[in-house]
């Protein structure tokens, strides 16, 4: 009985994790510019990964494997923000202007000149 319950909980975690991965992918396609897309990839980096690892932990039971998965999660959560920040910083240094909400109406005519060189 308990085993079935844990199995079901684990499936739910794995499926919702997968769903968030897909949502992150959709966001990656739909969001308007580079910087907003970083936020979408953040979904796959965090909640998707966390849910899937938790789901797998329930599958493995209490063993050395669980510890390894905790470490995977820890390393993932430490390294992905660094990678995201490196991407964002590189974009800033390269002069990529983020699309901001304050000036979208005036933008079409304004944005043309800088993008031409």
């Amino acid at each position, binding site marked *: 009985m308990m085993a079935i319950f844990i199995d079901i909980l684990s499936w739910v975690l794995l499926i919702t994790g997968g769903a968030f991965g897909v*949502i992150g992918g959709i966001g990656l396609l739909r969001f308007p*510019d580079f910087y*907003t897309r*970083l936020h*979408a990839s*953040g979904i796959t*980096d965090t909640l998707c990964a966390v849910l899937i690892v938790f789901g797998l932990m329930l599958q493995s039971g209490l063993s050395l494997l669980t510890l390894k998965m905790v470490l995977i999660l820890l390393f993932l959560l430490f390294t992905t*923000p660094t990678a995201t920040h490196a991407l*964002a910083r590189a974009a800033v240094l390269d002069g990529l202007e983020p699309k901001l*909400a304050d000036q979208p109406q005036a933008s079409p005519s304004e944005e043309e000149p800088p993008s031409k060189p």
Partner: protein
Amino acid sequence: MRYVISLGLLLVLLWLALSGVYKPVIFFLGAGSVILVVWLSVRMDVVGVEHNPVLFSWRLAAYWLWLLGQLVKSNLHVSKLVFQIDKVRPRLLTVPVPHQAAVSKVTYGNSVTLTPGTVTLRLTRDRLEAHALDEESARDLEAGHMARKISWLERQAEGES
């Protein structure tokens, strides 16, 4: 020296936990790799108070739990925005960084990037520039809950060292 020993012990424990194969040859290799890593760390001059894992307090676990809650919250918010694309209102913001230690500043910058909806663009001595996906994410960051949590984390580290 104290820090070198604690780092060594921790690496031995980590190796024992991760290996799972306990044979003489493997033990020999494990001991060799631990010694190599400790030697490299000493050479790189990264062994010290700031990097000593033994000093991590229970507050760090509490912070991670809190951060996990924030992650879920902001993930749900950004996922909602994926399906309401017209509500995306990106903007840039700058918030003060009130922390002293470099580790706390980095933790702050990383935590901001980790929560979807805000990405750290630049971290200087006392300012953090971020890109926010919409008004709500920006206000969440400006409210400074996260900065206060990390200050709380920092106070504990100071008390023990």
